[in-house]
């Protein structure tokens, strides 16, 4: 089989993984060595689905002993199989890197033989890259569930980021669809990576030249919509992973119906809107100082499809508003719809020079259409700020789902998201007061 065919098969097998970021590592150049990384990461292309391509995302091998029902590579699935030799894959990575196609490699593998055997092949590839080519670009590798701690240790010293995919957000889901995997053999390597990172930081404080262990941190991925888990379950798990496992990122991947198991959804479009809302919430957790309990609770276990989670939160918490632009601290500003991280920093900066007036907000990049309901400038409300929560809700819903405005014409529906009818005033009130 030639390299082109292998590349095609092993890309097709890897493409469902959502992670493709090259962030979190900042390696300055070293004379005579190829490559480097930059902290915010670089997307080198965008595929026809609009997802970022930052790394060469392939499997070492799509041969797999396991039979996870939600996965295209499951043993019982009839797909062409292939494996890269470590040399082939290392050369391919270098060739693409030199052409500025990629930031580096995102390497995973099916369980070809034992978990440790799959890990060994990956390690051999990465060794060629790091040791033979002196490659300093980005490498993200997945640890195979069930592999030995030694393999994790070895791999962790060679890569920037490591991930172990949780895949299904509940133990019940794993039992049904991936009986060969257990919560334990997923969490064990995650813990191992976490402890390795902590230890490595301590080592570095003492000896400067030991190789860093997983310097860009670890991440994981969950499939959304294959199992009946609620947004709240998914988000609480996410928060726990950030807090207890020190994860850098949790990725969500809308389930694409690739499985045939009776309990898996079939012929349904991937829940892209839901995935989008989860990412928005994840953003609020990581950068805006929100906690999951503020956003979803027992009464509202699902994210509002009509509103982004910050707007939804704001409407349920009138006691928090209005926020005074000239005095509020950073965290308070970040809770205001229409104020993002950048515009919050600009507000903090600009008000050191002089008091801000309502007409200044636009210049600072605040989305006034949203923010106007929630702020004051030196005690003054903004022009056409309304208090009626029903009207505000409809207003914000139209802003976050522009297609709702034209719901009259069925042809205008956005192809991406199915368009439910805009809720009535009563629905809104019920939703805000928690009766829905």
């Amino acid at each position, binding site marked *: 089989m030639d*390299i*082109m*065919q*292998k*590349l*095609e*098969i092993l*890309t*097709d097998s*890897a*493409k*469902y993984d959502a992670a493709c970021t090259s962030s979190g590592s900042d390696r*300055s*150049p*070293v*004379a*005579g*060595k*190829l*490559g*480097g990384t930059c902290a915010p990461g*670089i*997307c*080198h*292309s*965008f*595929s*026809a*689905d*609009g*997802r*970022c*391509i930052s790394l*060469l*995302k*392939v499997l070492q091998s799509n041969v797999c002993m396991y039979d996870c029902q939600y996965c295209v590579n499951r043993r019982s699935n009839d797909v*062409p199989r*292939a494996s890269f030799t470590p040399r082939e894959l290392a050369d*391919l990575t270098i*060739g*693409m890197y*030199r*052409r*500025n*196609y990629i930031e580096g490699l995102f390497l995973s593998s099916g369980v070809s033989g034992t978990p440790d055997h799959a890990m060994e092949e990956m390690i051999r590839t990465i060794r060629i890259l790091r040791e033979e080519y002196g490659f300093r670009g980005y490498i993200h590798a997945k640890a195979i569930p069930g592999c030995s701690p030694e393999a994790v240790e070895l791999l962790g010293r060679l890569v920037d980021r490591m991930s172990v995919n949780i895949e299904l957000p509940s133990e019940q889901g794993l039992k049904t669809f991936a009986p060969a995997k257990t919560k334990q053999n997923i969490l064990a390597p995650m813990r191992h990576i976490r402890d390795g990172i902590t230890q490595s930081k301590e080592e570095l404080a003492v000896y400067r030249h030991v190789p860093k262990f997983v310097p860009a941190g670890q991440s994981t991925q969950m499939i959304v919509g294959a199992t009946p888990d609620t947004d709240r379950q998914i988000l609480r798990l996410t928060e726990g992973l950030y807090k207890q496992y020190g994860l850098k990122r949790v990725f969500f991947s*809308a389930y*694409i119906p690739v499985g045939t198991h009776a309990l898996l959804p079939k012929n349904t*479009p*991937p829940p*892209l809107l839901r995935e989008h809302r989860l990412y928005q919430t994840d953003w609020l957790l990581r950068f805006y100082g929100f906690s999951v309990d503020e956003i979803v609770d027992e009464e509202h276990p699902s994210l509002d499809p009509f509103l982004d989670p910050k707007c939804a939160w704001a409407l349920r918490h009138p006691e928090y508003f209005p926020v005074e632009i000239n005095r509020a601290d950073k965290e308070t500003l970040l809770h205001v719809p229409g104020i993002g991280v950048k515009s919050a920093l600009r507000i903090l*900066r*600009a008000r*050191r*020079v*002089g008091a*801000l007036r309502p007409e*200044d907000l636009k*210049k*600072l990049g605040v989305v006034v259409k949203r923010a106007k309901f929630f702020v004051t400038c030196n005690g003054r409300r903004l022009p056409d700020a309304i208090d009626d929560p029903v009207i505000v809700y409809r207003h914000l819903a139209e802003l976050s789902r522009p297609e709702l405005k034209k719901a009259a014409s069925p042809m205008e529906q956005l192809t*991406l998201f199915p368009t439910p009818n805009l809720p009535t005033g009563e629905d809104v009130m019920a939703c805000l007061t928690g009766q829905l």
Partner: protein
Amino acid sequence: MSDRTALMFDGSFDGLLTAIFEAYTQRPMPAEIIEPDSQQHLGMVYRNVRTDAAKAARVRRGIRTQMGGEAYDNAWKAFLSQHPERGTFIYRYVRLGFQIKQQLVRSLTDERVITVNKLASLVAREASHLLQFVRLGETETGVYYSEITPTYPVLPLIMPHFVHRLNTQAFVIYDKTHKQAGLYNGRQWVLTDADNAQPPAYTAEERQYRQLWKTFYDTVAITERINPKLRQQFMPKKYWRNMVEMTETPTAHPALGE
């Protein structure tokens, strides 16, 4: 208002900095600083400024020490926007800066600051797009080659990034729009004017890599999620003409039986 004066610089950044230096020697200070192609206004008296590296260096140092490196950066990037009124915009920005010093970069509601920041961010955005979308190809001489067609002449902003990356690997990036080339021989890089860079012959391996990349690009997209609008939002169409994956014709897909 027939006694209003303006200075004219030669179109180089050093020229503009020299003109700013000269402006401070005049009473009253000139209203505008323009360059040969700019629109001239009736009733304005224009005076040419001869570029002087020493004077430019003094203004450069003044901006950096009194207003900070960020202010200097913004001025330099705004200059690269080639806006016909860039001279006057940067002049007003720097004048404000000499009055309010470090407060300059915080004065985000002042029109003079907003104008310069806007131009600077257009240029910065183009530069970061190019870090993403530049594609290099291996030529017979061993030098990697890339052609770009940016709106702004951002080569001076992007060359250091590629030099660091590729380290000992020699390469050329040719800016066809502005007829400028960034040359790197594996040790040092220079910027030169180049009227007509002939793309050198590519290696056979290069042709294979283009195909491999195209195959990867097409395969990695998830059919159920196809979303051309989203793609175009992140990857503006104007870059496509120089990108392998958007110009190569796909090969047959024997492996997956498509």
